[in-house]
């Protein structure tokens, strides 16, 4: 293709100046961008106001998307259900029989549990959620893993609060606008979650690998006791995440830990619950530990 007309100024001074100004502004753009980039690398919260304003503007779009996602899944599920209705009916009948038997033994276990708890004096306060919200967006094209929820400071959401779905931990709020909040997902490499093995309390921490998987790293090095299928739950140390929320299932043990998959994939969970931070003053501490942990972990990669 021939050179376009406005790149051939000829003798026109005005056209020559126009092209020159274009170059100057473009190079200034690079310089200004570097300045902004350095600012945001040093202080990641520097431009959070602009981001939350932008998220507010895109909120209706995200809500519409979230609704279409759930209806889409509903339609597929309904169509699929027709195809194996007969088989499902028989299966459900069997399951109901089994569940009835289970329910009786469950009842006795529950009674026993109640008695034992009373004996130990464990208080189990019902933690009231701050808000329930839709997941309305995520940074699907970026190496960083953020999601956006449609609840913000107007509903009591603040930065630092843990976000969970019914089946497990999703992440934590890092920026809150009036009607939206940005959530750092568990799969982001910046998010380090202290966990313990559900079975015996073996302590470890979980760090995102940004590819949908997570790294489970042991705190005590030595012989690796992790087996495939081990479930890890939040330990509550550091005070950011309340204890006992499922985080990960180990799938591939290696020398000093394991690779695992998430207990709650954000893609499968339309609704999430924002809970209040487990303990406010301990949050500073964990953030310091996280920074050190990330620094120590980096050279291994």
């Amino acid at each position, binding site marked *: 293709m021939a050179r376009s007309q406005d*790149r051939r100024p000829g003798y026109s001074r005005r056209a020559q100046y126009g092209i020159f100004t274009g170059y100057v502004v473009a190079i200034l*753009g690079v310089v200004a961008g570097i300045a902004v980039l350095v600012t945001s690398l040093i202080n990641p919260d520097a431009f959070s106001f602009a981001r939350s304003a932008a998220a507010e503007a895109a909120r209706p779009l995200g809500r519409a998307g979230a609704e279409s996602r759930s209806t889409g899944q509903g339609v597929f599920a309904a169509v699929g259900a027709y195809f194996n209705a007969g088989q499902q009916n028989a299966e459900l009948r069997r399951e109901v029989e089994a569940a009835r038997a289970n329910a009786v033994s469950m009842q006795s276990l529950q009674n026993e549990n109640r008695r034992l708890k009373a004996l130990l004096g464990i208080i189990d306060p019902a933690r009231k959620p701050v808000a329930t919200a839709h997941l309305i967006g995520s940074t699907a094209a970026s190496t960083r893993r953020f999601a956006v929820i449609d609840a913000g400071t107007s509903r009591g959401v603040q930065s630092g609060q843990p976000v969970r779905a019914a089946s497990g931990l999703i992440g934590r709020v890092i920026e809150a606008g009036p009607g939206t909040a940005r959530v750092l997902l568990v799969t982001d490499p910046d998010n380090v979650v202290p966990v313990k093995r559900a079975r015996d309390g073996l302590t470890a921490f979980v760090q995102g690998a940004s590819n949908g998987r997570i790294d489970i790293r042991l705190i005590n090095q030595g012989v690796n006791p992790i087996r495939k299928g081990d479930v890890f739950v939040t330990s509550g140390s550091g005070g950011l995440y309340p204890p006992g929320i499922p985080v990960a299932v180990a799938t591939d043990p290696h020398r000093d830990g394991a690779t695992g998959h998430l207990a709650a994939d954000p*893609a499968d969970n339309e609704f999430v619950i924002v809970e209040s931070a487990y303990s406010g003053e301990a949050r500073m501490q964990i953030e310091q530990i996280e920074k050190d942990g990330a620094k120590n972990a980096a050279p291994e990669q």
Partner: protein
Amino acid sequence: MNLRNLDETGDVIARKRINRAPLPLLAIGLPWATIMLASMASFSPIISSAPVMPPLAYMMLLAWRMMRPGMLPLWAGLPLGLFDDLYSGMPFGSGIVLWSGTMLAMELIDEKFLWRGFAQDWLAACALISAYLLLGSVLAGIATGYPLPLVIVPQTLVSLALYPVVTRVVALLDRVRLLPLKRL
């Protein structure tokens, strides 16, 4: 009957073409609007736990720039990159730098390789998209202190394969852009 019908439609088209011009708002604004809309694609129904979506907005910018050189001004990377930063989740400013750099790089490519076919365009886009994703992941790695260069490989491959599709979409949008809607 059929013939007359055909004649009439031809007549209508002719009447629609003559004395009409594209709407200036559409002709100038559509590239900007579509690129910005592609930036907002992160508010799509897909909630992903890995980088899987191609950088649609950036690919759109490249496709418009290659289809109509000189239509987007040289400094377009500054405002469009800024807008992309608001939604992309990358460290703020990385879009401004990389998009402005892209516009300058495209200027260089135009200078060196003026006569290009589609294959060369695609090749140039491959180089630019790969560089964009790699630099983006490096900047994100600096921000987290935990570099992960391998996670962008599938995304890069998908993006390179999808670029021709994006150019077709942009070509379609270009026809919409030049619809003769304004009466002179």
